[in-house]
């Protein structure tokens, strides 16, 4: 049974995101462990990219900090190897497709399997372009996470049917970043997904409060928080560990019961 599947088994999952290498890879490892210890069910590790077109300013800046500190794909894999000696928390990469393309799909997915990365989220690879990667990823048991957006509408069934791991429902238009209000009818999207698949649904983009975590984990199977975590790392830097632990503990306490 896959680690991702277990994260959602009989429970709701809080999913935390952070950018690898911000402020350093040693700290990324520490922060992941803190979040896992605080009850995060799954961690998304962002591979920094020079031009993250699906991200808002908070994560863009984290990408710049990580790249300026010398973070690379190979160093991230090394960090994951070390992390895997200490935790079994499911790990997925959030990356832009060029990172995988340049590394080589085959090499990248093989390294994921070797290092213990369970899946990849690729915001710039829509359903129509999946075919070039999915067979390779399947060979190495790496789930390519499907994204569903507020604009997906009649596409939902088509893209959801093919999903593995979990489905990432984008709650809002635009790029990543905390929002005070989410206006999309996420419930309707989740219902449509449920018609075609049992793959767990996690909801993200704009979520940053315990109340939002409660609301969206009740609608779906999990809630994703990214920018709020990255903002804390930006603010507290190397000392962010305990703050993240505290924050994630609070968010996890907001999870709806299954």
């Amino acid at each position, binding site marked *: 049974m896959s680690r991702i599947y277990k994260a959602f088994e009989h429970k709701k999952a809080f999913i935390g995101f952070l950018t690898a290498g911000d402020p350093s890879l040693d700290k990324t490892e520490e922060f992941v462990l803190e979040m896992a210890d605080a009850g995060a069910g799954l961690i998304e590790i962002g591979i920094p990219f020079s031009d993250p077109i699906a991200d808002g*300013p908070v994560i863009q800046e984290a990408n710049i900090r990580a*790249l300026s500190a010398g973070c690379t794909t190979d160093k991230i894999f090394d960090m994951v190897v070390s992390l895997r000696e200490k935790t079994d928390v499911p790990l997925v990469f959030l990356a832009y497709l060029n990172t995988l393309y*340049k590394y080589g799909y085959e090499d990248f997915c093989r390294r994921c399997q070797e290092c213990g990365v369970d899946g990849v989220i690729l915001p*710039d690879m*829509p359903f129509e372009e999946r075919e070039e990667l999915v067979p390779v990823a399947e060979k190495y048991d790496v789930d390519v996470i499907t994204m569903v*957006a507020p604009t997906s509408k009649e596409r939902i069934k088509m893209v959801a049917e093919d999903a593995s791991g979990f489905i990432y429902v984008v709650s809002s238009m*635009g*790029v990543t970043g905390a929002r005070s209000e989410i206006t999309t009818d996420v419930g309707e999207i989740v219902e449509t997904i449920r018609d075609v698949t049992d793959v767990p649904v996690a909801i993200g983009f704009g979520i940053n409060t315990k109340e939002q975590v409660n609301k969206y984990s009740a609608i779906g199977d999990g809630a994703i928080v990214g920018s709020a975590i990255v903002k804390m790392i930006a603010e507290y830097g190397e000392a962010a560990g305990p703050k993240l632990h505290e924050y994630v503990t609070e968010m996890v306490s907001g999870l709806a019961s299954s």
Partner: protein
Amino acid sequence: MSNSMNTGRYGKHGGQYVPETLMNEIHKLEDAYEQYKNDAEFVEELDRLNREYAGRPSLLYFAEKMTKDLGGAKIYFKREDLNHTGSHKINNVLGQVLLAKKMGKTRVIAETGAGQHGVATATAAALLDMECEIYMGKEDTIRQALNVYRMELLGAKVHPVESGTMTLKDAVNACMREWTARVDDTLYVLGSVMGPHPFPMMVRDFQSVISKEAREQILEAEGKLPDVVMACVGGGSNAMGSFYEFINDKEVRLIGCEAAGHGVDTDKTAATMAVGTEGVFHGMKSYFCQDEYGQIAPVYSISAGLDYPGVGPEHAYLRDIHRAEYVPVTDEEAVQAFEYIAKEEGIIAAIESSHAVAHLMKIAPKMEKEQIIICTLSGRGDKDVAAIARYRGIDLHE
């Protein structure tokens, strides 16, 4: 010939690598374009705008003095610099903004490097009554301050983009982010033959009016096809438009001139074909300037319009199949060409176009007198005068 595959592929290049949020909109755009490009009324309306507003057809001008001075092939310039708004960009924006209107959009957004595409988009938006917002790298708003004001005069709102290298690629990033946030009433009017399908095809079609006219004009003037067709290449829209109708004329050499900046052996370059590798970025698979991990390189050129780390997918394909060749031209060579064509022909050409002129100056003398070169002057150089003066160490006070 040039590949009519409906998935928007040019060999292995092209595709639609954009967030799910944009996919429905991209498909709507594809459908709308397929419908309207064959719609007699749309075609007629665009044709009328091209003739009566943009001033088409543009001249194919025989540069007699340069021909004599360089002492080789006969040199013709396709004068896109004489179009309304001063560059080839108007060809594309009239098409796209008209399409946006037909699609029921009320707002257009666009990226711009040198400001030419931004000015053209703002112009078309003013004419066709659309709201218009332009994203321009902050660095470029400084290099091309006059164009910023020009866009504002035309009623557009200009957003200086302060992320990354603050140049063209960052303006594209910002535009894509904005489009993801607001698709319902907005069309992203992409300025070059790049981005996700259908943009590379659509922009190429709108720009192919350049080669359609040039082919007829040269047959009229010389009774035969040219030996060389050349143009500068950033994303590659004026080059694609200049090449397209000649692609099937195998005997016509197609040459794209890239911005080498300080040189292709330095890191201050934007010559994607020379130093780039395959990648996936800005919605397309193509060649990009990038490092071993796929981080997009901070490219450099004196020309804001060529200062882009990628190239359109159809160009990548034309290179792969050896149908077109791509050559790097340095800042210094381009500036010399800028000065040369001004003194020799009385034409102040854009610094972008001057890259093509520079390469023309290298090859024309080596060609036979009965041979013919058509070089596209993609834009006029008024916008560059201050920057060239600075490059030459002259302090101008406007």
